[in-house]
Each structure stands twice: as structure tokens, then as C-alpha cells.
């Protein structure tokens, strides 16, 4: 029985990465259709990190980030959190609004609404890909947008469940724009037991 992500093998990580790539491809298409902008997305990395390293990946616990959070119920209970540093969020808004990089200086209401939609789409396409690979059903809540310290966002998610696996699945999402790389991180924080269900359904636990 796999208790958390640190026990995964290379094959299992490859399977999860494949799911990430399919999700990112669909997300790019959806965002391009929505905004009319040319959106290219890839998943350069899928990783397994200890929970207490997550904040470091986005600049430290005290760093201001934009987070889009959804709880997921259905076949397996989990949490999805899309995190972007503020500067990347601004660049992403520029891209989606068809403006040159550096155009947006602050995250106004319109920008935040756009980021929330991006988080929603990325999470949704990822879960759809996972559902189609596994035959499982995932029911996300509406997205909740927070601009605050990374640590504060993460500890609140952890506290809601009291217990989550010690490790987190990270899907790095890269938006390509000329010389600017805009990287956001999609984190999946499953309840204990949920990961096993997902991997069994993916066919990577025999």
C-alpha cells in the first residue's frame, strides 16, 4: 500500500506526467479559445515534493502569491491548488489579454478574475484527463482565489484535513511566450488513501 507520493516508482511518475501533459494540452486549447491569444503550454516536470518544501517552490512561506484552490470529491478526495508568483501572474495576464509583457503592473479585479479562470481551467483539464485515464469521477468545488502568503494558504489547506500525505504531487505548467517563461505550479494534495485509489485505477499498482 502506498501511503504517500514518496513511495512512487519511475513508471508511476511517468503515468502521472502523461496525465499532466494531456491536461496541459487541453488547458492551452481552452485558454486560446477563450482569449483569442496564442497559448502554448507544456509540462516540463512532474515531481513529488515533501509538503514542507512546497512554499519554497514559490518563493518561501512569507512570499505573496496568487492561489486558486479547489476541493475535489467523488471517487477520491483531494485538493487542487494552482500557485503563481505575483510577477508571473502579471505576465500571464499580459499574455491572455494580448498585451506586451510588462503591461500590467498590478493585479486589478479583471486580472484576478482571469487568473481564477486559468486556475479553474488548468485544474479542470487535469482532473478530466485523470478521469479519462482512470474511469474515476472527480467533482471539484468552484475555485476560490486568494492573494496572500504562500505559507498561509498551504497551512490552511493542510489544517482543514488535519492529515494529508506528507508528500505532494506537483505539475509544473509552463506557458511559452517568446523569451518569457511563465511557470505556474499545480499541486495535488490528496487525503491519505486517495493516491492509492488513483494509482490503482491508472493501472500502475499491480
Amino acid at each position, binding site marked *: 500500500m502506498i501511503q504517500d507520493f514518496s513511495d512512487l516508482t519511475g513508471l508511476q511518475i511517468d503515468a502521472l506526467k502523461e496525465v499532466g501533459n494531456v491536461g496541459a494540452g487541453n488547458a492551452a486549447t481552452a485558454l486560446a479559445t477563450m482569449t483569442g491569444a496564442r497559448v502554448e503550454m507544456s509540462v516540463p516536470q512532474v515531481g513529488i515534493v515533501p509538503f514542507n518544501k512546497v*512554499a519554497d517552490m514559490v518563493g*518561501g*512561506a*512569507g512570499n*505573496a502569491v496568487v492561489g486558486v*484552490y479547489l*476541493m475535489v470529491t467523488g471517487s477520491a478526495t483531494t485538493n487542487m491548488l494552482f500557485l503563481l508568483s505575483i510577477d508571473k501572474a502579471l505576465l500571464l495576464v499580459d499574455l491572455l489579454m494580448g498585451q506586451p509583457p510588462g503591461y500590467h503592473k498590478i493585479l486589478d479585479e479583471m486580472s484576478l478574475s482571469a487568473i481564477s479562470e486559468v486556475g479553474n481551467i488548468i485544474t479542470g483539464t487535469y482532473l478530466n484527463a485523470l478521469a479519462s485515464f482512470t474511469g474515476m469521477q472527480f467533482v471539484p*468545488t*468552484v475555485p*476560490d482565489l*486568494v*492573494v*496572500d*502568503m*504562500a*505559507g*498561509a*494558504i*498551504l*497551512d*490552511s489547506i*493542510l*489544517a*482543514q484535513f*488535519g*492529515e494529508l500525505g506528507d508528500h505532494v504531487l506537483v505539475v509544473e505548467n509552463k506557458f511559452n511566450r517568446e523569451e518569457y517563461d511563465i511557470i505556474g505550479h499545480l499541486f495535488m494534495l490528496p487525503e491519505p488513501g486517495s493516491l492509492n485509489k488513483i494509482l490503482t485505477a491508472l493501472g500502475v499498482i499491480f
Partner: protein
Amino acid sequence: MVRSPDRLITAGLGSCIGICLIDKTAKVGGMAHIMLPSSIQARNAQNRAKFADTAVEDMIYEMEKLGAIKRRIVAKIAGGAQMFKISAASDIMKIGLRNDQAVESALAQAKIRIVAKDTGGNFGRTIIFDTESGDLLVRTIGHGEKII
């Protein structure tokens, strides 16, 4: 737990609470970062620093080892925010509020007076506790900065 004039820092408190205790006479201070209200309902309560009840007990014990006297110890607390709208819908999910209540009752049980607090709201806090002056600096993003 430290001797003054050390400063103790916790970055990015959300629904968690930073509990700061100080005995100014003995020049001993401490900070704990608790995540959940009670160790009693927890499936795994091994990490005692994670829960309001056990963290308070352990802090007092450690401070006494450094020479603090319990009746002189006072507390300042910060954190306990409600970061997400989704979870505000259900009482059981209001961890920030439950943490706040649990910390207050654990301190009351230990007969430790809370001299200042900054809890609640929907925003994160970074806290810096000066164990010399007893000042607790609370930083936020977009909700100002204050010393309590």
C-alpha cells in the same frame, strides 16, 4: 524556547496560530506554531507541537527548564485566519476560529493570561516576536503591519 534578546519568526500563518509566551523577569520566551485545535481527536498525535493543547503544555515545560516561572508567563497570540470562502460555509471547516478558541482555552487552563491577540480575518500573517521587549510584530499583505 530562547533566552532574550533573541527574536523568533514564523512566516505565513494562515489558519494556524502562533503562540508566543514570555517571562520577562527570567528573560525566557518561546513561540509555537500550532495547526489544529486538539490532539484528542487526532488519528496521529505524535507531533505534539501541532496541536493547541499539547503545544501549550510542552512550551511551559520547556520554558520552566530555562528558568521561567509559570505564574509570570504571559501570552500573545496571532493567526487563526479563514483563508478560503469555501470552508467558511461549514463550521467544522472553520479551523482558524476553532484554533483560536482552543488556544485560549489551553492558556486559560494553564492560568496564563493573554495580554494581546491579533486573530481571525481572511489574510495570512508573518509574526516576529522580540523576546526582550515582548513586542510581537504582525505583518500582512494588504492589511497593514502592527505591533501588539
